[in-house]
């Protein structure tokens, strides 16, 4: 597939560091005048390099979407980042104003929302919606704008884009709408694309095609991807790294191979015990016990009421990140001292 020339590629600086480095990110929801606090994202850290794909997995309500929205700085009104940093291409986004963030969103970072079917404005043409990022960020007008849009639509395999772009969302199939949302994400030439569970509403073949398309585009442009999903089959197929969330915390992260071959955290092990097929619409795993209530988490390790391997200290002491020799990081007392990579001994601060 021809992605067509240098204008599609992100304008990446030659900086060597990671594209994205999230450290100790904490995002809380405040309700009832601040009396009720939900720690939707609790000291989450991970890094992502150019061309890499991170799979972010976890049960419903574990904080995946909130993590993504914290990165782009578009949290709901009730939520606030209360700690940590999001360093994107060397700049800490948590310190930027909305005005500065607007210049980054849609241009250097794009996000594909959880429901691609509802993400297009029903009253505007496809052309207009795909053109907006280039119109506002790159000041493209007239013919060059039209060519740019056709080009983007071709890149996501929309047939005859010249006339398709004059149509409206309701005239498109679900798969097409999803690819158009993909084209919008690519419109600014981003170096990071966050895709929040983009496949759940579509049937298996379309889902697989879409994933292939994203991979192709990544190969062409070197864009870094964060892929949020419930589906570990997709992670195995798509991702280089995995991060597993439980109750707002990243309880284990690492390279896909290492994590799938030798999961360290009991929760990850439980997840892997029940992998659904690619395309399954099941909310996957049924792990014994109640999913946690984020407004009222148990003391110690949040997973302890459901953990088959809990030890006494799990009830009262919360484990921190333990960095292990094979590149994985796990937040569980069981791995303490096991093949730990020296300096990083984790213990809960706060």
């Amino acid at each position: 597939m021809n992605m067509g020339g240098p204008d599609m590629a992100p304008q990446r600086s030659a900086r060597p560091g990671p594209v994205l480095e999230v450290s100790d990110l904490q995002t809380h929801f405040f309700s009832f005048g601040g009396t009720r606090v939900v720690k939707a994202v609790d000291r989450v850290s991970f890094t992502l390099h150019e061309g890499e794909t991170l799979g972010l997995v976890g049960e419903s309500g574990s904080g995946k979407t909130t993590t993504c929205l914290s990165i782009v700085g578009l949290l709901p009104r009730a939520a606030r980042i209360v700690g940590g940093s999001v360093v994107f291409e060397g700049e800490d986004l948590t310190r930027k104003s909305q005005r500065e963030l607007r210049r980054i969103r849609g241009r250097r970072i794009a996000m594909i929302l959880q429901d691609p079917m509802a993400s297009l404005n029903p009253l505007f043409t496809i052309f207009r919606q795909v053109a907006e990022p280039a119109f506002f960020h790159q000041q493209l007008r007239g013919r060059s704008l039209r060519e740019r849009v056709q080009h983007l639509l071709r890149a996501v395999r929309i047939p005859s884009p010249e006339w398709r772009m004059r149509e409206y969302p309701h005239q498109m199939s679900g798969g097409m709408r999803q690819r158009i949302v993909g084209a919008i994400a690519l419109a600014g030439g981003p170096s990071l694309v966050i895709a929040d569970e983009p496949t759940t509403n579509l049937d298996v073949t379309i889902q697989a095609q879409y994933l292939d398309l994203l991979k192709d585009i990544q190969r062409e442009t070197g864009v870094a991807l964060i892929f949020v999903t419930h589906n570990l089959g997709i992670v195995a197929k798509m991702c280089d790294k995995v991060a597993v969330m439980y109750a707002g915390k990243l309880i284990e992260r690492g390279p896909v191979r290492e994590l799938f071959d030798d999961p360290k955290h009991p929760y990850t092990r439980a997840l892997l015990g029940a992998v659904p097929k690619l395309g399954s619409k099941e909310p996957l795993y049924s792990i014994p016990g109640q999913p946690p209530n984020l407004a009222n988490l148990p003391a110690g390790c949040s997973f302890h009421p459901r953990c088959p391997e809990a030890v006494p200290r799990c009830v009262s002491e919360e484990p921190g990140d333990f960095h292990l020799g094979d590149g994985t990081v796990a937040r569980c007392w069981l791995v303490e001292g096991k093949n730990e990579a020296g300096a990083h001994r984790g213990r809960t601060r706060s």
Partner: protein
Amino acid sequence: MPQFIIRRVLYSLVTLCILSATIFLVVRFTGDPVALMAEASARPEDLDRIRQQWGLDRSWPVQYVTFMQNAFKGELGKSFNYRLPVSELYFQRLPNSLTLGLAATLISLLIGVPAGIISAVKVNSWWDNVAKGVALLGLSIPGFWLGLVLILVFSVWLRWLPTSGAGDWRHVVMPALALGWYFAASMLRLTRSSMLEVLGSEYIKLARLKGLPDVVVIAMHAFKNALIPVFTLAGVNMVVMVNAAVIIEVIFAWPGIGRLLYEGIFQRDFPLVQGVVIMAGFMIVGINLVVDILYAFIDPRIRLTR
């Protein structure tokens, strides 16, 4: 599209028939008009003669059918009181009522829509709370009370505006304000809730994710979608303001349809009341068609299907 219009017209006809039958019955339950038409000294035979003259001696079904037959020919009957064709009376008053209704609609839109948008965008801010309070006041302060206060302030104390009657623009200001006020409150509430719903949608999130300026997100992406229910309400409100601004027209002695209706009800002027109500029904049907066409203009889902 033509099929859709035919269906709409048929529905409208059914609605108008139900409306006409209802108003036909309702006026007849208000009492006997003949007593008011005759002089106090009239004998029973005189009353019978009047009854016969106006066709009121016939059974209700017969009266209704005659009325409808005439209505289809565009004749709404003769007013008992004025002894003139109802349609003539109606169209005489219509320009005044349209002036007042349009001015009041404009006021309600100019106040209600921007305030509703700001309220939704800054939800739960002090502005939103003030706007919610004002909307509540608007819905609970009766228009006649506001009218009287306006007269007191602007005519009696400041002597800026005439108290009543119709003439130039100065006569319109106070009745339009008093009338538009109530409707501004309902426009505010509807705009606010409609905007809130749209602002929470996924496509607005995506518009924000594109890094678009807030003005573009709110004024173009959100407002266009929030507009549709606002249009409907504005259309219906306008018909009500044109045809049934009874209290305001009475207070400001505005020679409009509302006052005609008021007189008609008090005089038991059946043809007049029936005529005004049916004309209002027609206007609602017409406005709804206009609003539908506007929808099709705004919304490609309507324009390109059906």
